[in-house]
């Protein structure tokens, strides 16, 4: 066996994959982000919509599982696993990495999911109730458990390094990237597929989020429903999708001549210890997550050139996150450009942090900051620069991305532009 070189302690991003409500594939996704294209429409994946209070969401429209899996698997597998395999395959191809037998032992997977295979879970439970327990699928357990995104992607690509999962609701994608960064930094892997996958748009998901009274009910105007930081925001818009990034030891990436999109330089996390669904009113956990990310990166607030906000379009999140940014950034909070790309993708829950990290990577690569679309009426409680409606040409060196989840999970990543 070949001796593994000492880890460089630095972790770079060398591959990107995306399945989103505004396009499958990084190029089409990023193109639509820059153009300010929204993906929210009347839902098609849930029957009898009129019995729900919310009828709208951001579905992935151009995805065909058979493009990524064999026919047998594509026909029956839960959508969140199919998305994860697609994202993983795209990211690996994009990285140009050659998977030798030795590297496979050092290449891990950490693709989280906030919920897991809820569609499959619902179908099988219905079968159990209507026909009986002897008629449920033998795939019920493996297609339901959230860790199967990582497990399945590892099997498809033969990646035998650390294989694990994060489940922190809407902070999942950011935690997955941050935790994978630590795994590589401490030398437990040379490379990781990291990200999040979510497919919550089904009868159970819609009913449950409707009951939680957290979603927009702007049913007659779906294109304007996701409006983070706007005064008339009235709830998040549910979305689905997957983001996967190849994270790699920097020396390894340089030695193979990889294109280096960005470097992960900071990661912070903190708990609210406050309420099961509501964020802390003063953003206590969010403040500490951002501060820890900055200190771990050895950066000052003024070094950050762009913030990709959690920005869910709920009253509480957007005002609380604004307060938290002010508490961390002081006067500079009024200068740093901030946007919520959930205005376009909807809230993809466990995938959100991964897609938003991907947005940060492309923003730094292209020197374009993405907009917050549907921003019409300023809110006195949200008085920062949210890059309203139109993308901005601006080169930045560091991006900060926030994700917060039910349960009081707060996670912040800081990425640095590639060399």
């Amino acid at each position, binding site marked *: 066996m070949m001796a593994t070189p000492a880890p460089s302690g630095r972790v770079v991003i060398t591959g990107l994959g995306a399945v989103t409500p505004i396009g499958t594939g990084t190029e089409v996704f990023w193109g639509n982000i820059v153009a300010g294209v929204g993906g929210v429409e009347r839902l098609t994946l849930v029957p009898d919509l009129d019995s729900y209070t919310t009828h709208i969401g951001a579905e992935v429209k151009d995805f065909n599982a058979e493009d990524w899996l064999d026919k*047998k698997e*594509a026909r029956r597998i839960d959508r969140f696993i199919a998305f994860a395999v697609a994202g993983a395959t795209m990211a690996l191809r994009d990285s140009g990495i050659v998977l030798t037998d030795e590297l496979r032992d050092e290449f891990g997977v950490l693709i989280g999911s906030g919920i897991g295979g809820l569609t499959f879970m619902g179908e099988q439970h219905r079968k159990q109730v209507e026909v009986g327990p002897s008629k449920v699928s033998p795939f019920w357990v493996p297609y339901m458990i959230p860790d199967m995104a990582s497990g399945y992607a590892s099997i498809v690509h033969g990646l035998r390094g650390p294989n694990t999962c994060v489940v922190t609701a809407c902070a999942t994608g950011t935690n997955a990237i941050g935790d994978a960064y630590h795994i590589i930094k401490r030398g437990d892997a040379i490379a990781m597929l990291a990200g999040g996958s979510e497919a919550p748009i089904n009868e159970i998901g819609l009913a449950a989020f409707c009951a939680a009274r957290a979603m927009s009910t702007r049913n007659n105007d779906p294109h304007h429903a996701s409006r983070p930081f706007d005064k008339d925001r009235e709830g998040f818009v549910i979305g689905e999708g997957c983001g996967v990034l190849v994270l790699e030891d920097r020396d390894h990436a340089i030695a193979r001549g990889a294109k280096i999109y960005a470097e992960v330089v900071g990661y912070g996390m903190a708990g609210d210890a406050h309420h099961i669904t509501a964020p802390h009113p003063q953003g206590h956990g969010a403040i500490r997550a951002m501060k820890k990310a900055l200190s771990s990166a050895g950066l000052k607030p003024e070094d950050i050139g762009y913030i990709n906000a959690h920005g869910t379009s709920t009253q509480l999140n957007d005002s609380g996150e604004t307060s938290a940014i002010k508490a961390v950034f002081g006067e500079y909070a009024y200068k740093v450009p901030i946007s919520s790309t959930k205005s376009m993708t909807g809230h993809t829950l466990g995938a959100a942090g991964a897609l938003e990290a991907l947005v940060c990577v492309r923003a730094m690569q292209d020197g374009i900051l993405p907009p917050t679309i549907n921003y019409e009426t300023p809110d006195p409680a949200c008085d920062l620069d949210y890059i309203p409606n139109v993308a901005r040409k601006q080169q930045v060196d560091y991006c900060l991305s926030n994700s917060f989840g039910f349960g009081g999970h707060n996670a912040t990543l800081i990425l640095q532009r590639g060399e």
Partner: protein
Amino acid sequence: MSQDILNRVKKVTVEELGVKEEEVIEAASFTEDLGADSLDVVELVMAFEDEFGIDIPDEEVGEIKTVGNAVEYISKKLG
């Protein structure tokens, strides 16, 4: 051996295992030749139960290793 049963076994196998119809010959083993794992076999057997309206007890699943076995077993069950 009933041609009708064979045709329906073939149809179900093609759907469940995602294989080509010409691969589903009587001598073909579900696990050795048609790529089924143990979970696939459970699902395939459940699909046969639905298709033919029969019950296949777990302890008899072992008799159904090939396409031909399945046709024989089902013919016997249907009397």
